């Protein structure tokens, strides 16, 4: 059970949060212009890597804010948390 440092509320138990899958997959601005394959890529394709992964999390039972997390899925180490709209770290 992680302890997650919500950028708005501080450290809270994982129970209060909801994981929201891979981060930085932007919804296409003009979906109708996309081919079936391109749209399917946005809809379905996720990396699901073992190692350092960029994720979306929501403080569902708290401030309800979404934020980004960099987590090592192999040992659950949370490396970084940053707000929505902020640029992901390059490395």
């Amino acid at each position, binding site marked *: *059970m*992680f*302890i997650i440092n919500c950028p708005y509320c501080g450290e809270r*138990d994982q129970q209060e949060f*909801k994981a*929201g899958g891979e981060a930085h997959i*932007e*919804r*296409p601005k*003009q*979906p*109708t212009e*996309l081919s*079936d394959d391109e*749209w*399917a890529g946005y*809809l379905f394709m996720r990396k699901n890597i073992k190692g350092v992964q960029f994720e*979306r999390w*929501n403080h*569902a039972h708290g401030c*309800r*804010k*979404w934020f980004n997390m960099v987590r090592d899925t192999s*040992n*659950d180490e949370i490396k970084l948390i940053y707000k*929505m*709209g902020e640029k992901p770290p390059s490395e």
Partner: protein
Amino acid sequence: MSTNLRVKSSEFIDETIRISFKFNGKTYQGFKGDTLASALLANNIHLVGRSFKYHRPRGIMTAGSEEPNAIVQLNDKTNRTEPNVRATEVEIYEGLEASSQNCWPNVNFDIGGINNAISAFLPAGFYYKTFMWPASFWEKYEYFIRQSAGLGKSPSDNDPDIYDHRNIHCDVLVVGAGISGILAAKNAAKNNLKTLLVDEKNELGGATIYQNSEFNKIDNQSSSNWIKKEIQELKNIKNLEIKTRTSVAAFHGYNYLLARENLTDHLEKKNKQGKIRQRLLKIRAKKVILATGALERPLIFNNNDRPGIMLSSAVKKYADFYGVISGKKNVFFTNNDSAYESVLCLHNKGIKVEAIIDIRENSDSKIVKAVKDAGITIHWSHTIVDTKGYKKLSSISAMKLSNDGLSVTGKNINISCDCLGVTGGWTPAVHLFTQSGGKLVFDENNKVFLPNEYPSEQLSVGSCNGDFKIKEIINNLSINLKQFLKIKKTDFDDITVESEEENSKRNIWLLPSDKPIGKTKPFVDYQNDATAKDIKLALREGFRSIEHVKRYTTTGMGTDQGKLGNMHALGIIADTAGVKMGELGTTTFRPPYTPLTFGTIVGRNVGEYFDIFRRTPMNDWHIENKAKFENVGQWKRAWYYPINDENMHKAVQRESLAARESAGILDASTLGKIDIQGSDASEFLNRVYTNAWSKLGIGKCRYGLMLNEDGMVYDDGVTTRLGENHYIMTTTTGGAANVLGKLEDYLQTEWPELDVYLTSVTDHYATASICGPNSKKILNKIIPDLDLSEENFPHMSFKNAQIGNIKCRLMRISFTGEHSYEINVQANYGKAIWEKCMEAGKEFNITPYGTETMHLLRAEKGFIIVGQDTDGTMTPIDLQMNWIVSKKKYDFIGKRSLYRSDTMKEERKQLVGLLTDDPNIVLEEGAQIVSELNQSPVNMLGHVTSSYYSPNLKKSIALAVVRSGKNMMGKKLFIPMVDKNINVTVANPIFFDTENKRLNA
């Protein structure tokens, strides 16, 4: 047989307090301080249970929680019964009743023992190989296996005890209160760290407390005296909380640990009443210090499982701590020095030690010399090749070991004995460390796995970290503790410690016998009856990974998780496969370390507290009027209101007729309500619903359908425009929280530029929905000054109104197809408004109806219920709701997916109506639909999603999803049931009032 085998009074046993208890129906005496195991041994009872597969007689092997054999059922002739309890952990109390498990008819004569005689036919994987074929026989096999297996009996009634949960936050958690744990906890607390020290036993001090050895001295006193003084000091330290009888069950990531605290199990029955029995501690620790000690290993030799064969350290603990001798004629079997401590302990108490069988060539340590000086025979370079005695050990035979340790030579030495103390060295208890994700490394010298990489702020100290001698324990603890806790000094930096330095050991995982392996029974896992032979067989059959071998042979899969024999299993696998230790994996220890009761896990969350539930403000009225309830999400909703002895069918038929003939009233408070405000609210609705919202006038309502991005229907409901920038959205009862979450997600992450604010107001309003041809008259009685004309208040519109002093929001919307009004008031006025409606409707026979009638009425109109007629694979096109999908809007959630090749296929399942040829047959929801009866394999077209007998149409109606259904209007299909085939015809899903005339009636 009632010889009292007490040797001397022990300071840990109170001989002035006699306790009588029952074992297998017979009454015995013990003393306060005894465990069930020590009291049984004092009564000369070794045979406690039978093994799982061969039903071999088994006795007490250990003196701790690692016990594999002495597993009993506790019962007191009430529901307070518990199986799979270790006799070595049960503290006896007046009135305790325990019985053997896994034997029938009794432990002395057990029918399953025949398995032992035919054990040649029960090799590893026997059950898998034998009972898998033919598959249809599995039910019969299972019955047979369960009968003869029997891992205790579960209670048949509710648990009468109270359980509890507690959250604890601390700076330092110390697990284990042996010498390392005590010193670590003391120094952490003294440095102003909030510290919690837990131990599974009822006494602090671990093994040191009774280790009265002249070879271990601290500050020139015996280590046991020294530790007693330390324990005394603990009591005066601030910041330190101590919990005994508390076993850490699980060590999760981020230093989150679960522990079970036993509060009343050791008390007499009358003192247990009304008290919390066990408490689950949920511990969040900034730092964790594991001082979990080490478990003594047995040796693996032929027939190493007879009652009377025990761990050497257990023999010593029973003598030193409980004052009980385990045998009158003792033999020890060892590969290291620790057996010699037990030998001296018995010898000094005047108990006879017949001989020591030592597989080493020699040892010159001080302690061995002391044993030699005492004149006790030591057979060096010997191994035990067999043991005798069915229900109790009677003799052993030993032979000389070859130099390579693989075979035996020479003559058999037979020694008669009734107790054999065995030691194969010590295994650090790294269970919790590995649970937390820690990585181990194999120490080739000591043949142990040791903590290597810590995954969190934690430290292993003492013998669980491979420090076995008191001197190395204290020296290393001092260094590591200072670094880990960032403190300058400890208060044991300068103490003098003397302990035995010698550490010689000869490790042979599987000891040879004069018989071939196929003819021997060297048990590796005692509880599950897995022998070395089984492990070798598994390897021969091609299993390599330790996890596979473990499952195939069931090694380490008992309730003890193979705490004694896992290392040997790994060793035998490594030796046989010719690889390095650990190369094929180490077994993973999973929580809980020792079994937990279900009561501890659920705590207070039982009965009505099992899950959260929600009630509407009108709930009391429903109860007073004898409503039956159903669970919808977390809500308790009125299901139907039976009058007298009406069954559900009769009640629903009556309610349904009344709602269409005169007036009905429904508690709709559970529908999700989201308040939407902001200058971009209209644009936001445009993006989340499939239809257009910008032109909806203020004071108007509109039905909306919400999709997932994959184009599938997600939720639906009516949204009302309350003002220029203000809407109130309703959602399905079950979907409310998820819809809000989804909308927030889009607002925060995809469209942060929109000026929109969402607030859940579900609980703020109570909603009564009145429907039927007389609903207008009823509303007019309640709100006489409101103009209810079609011009002023048409269908799909909204009014603010006042009922007496109560403000309300009125919507003229309908889920039944009848002329209806929804009255929303502040939640606390809900019941008052409801009662007012009932009063006003009395002359019109206003009939309260529940969710079942609501479902029936809407099905008559062909209105879908998201989650019943849809299942996450239905698009609005599949539902034949093309009218609600805007063609003009550039984009909305899910729009692009409606044009994927897959969602455009004609042969998708589509929502249709079904009418049975026989109007009295009501279809089963979920029933499969086919077009051909004599097809093989039969082609399933779809299934029935909603089905009712309609009292208004006087016939059975159903909704269904059918492949290509929209092109099948009028087609005959079949529904094959177990006893008959039902003929149906595809029909328009709107069965009643197809022109919607009644809405304005």
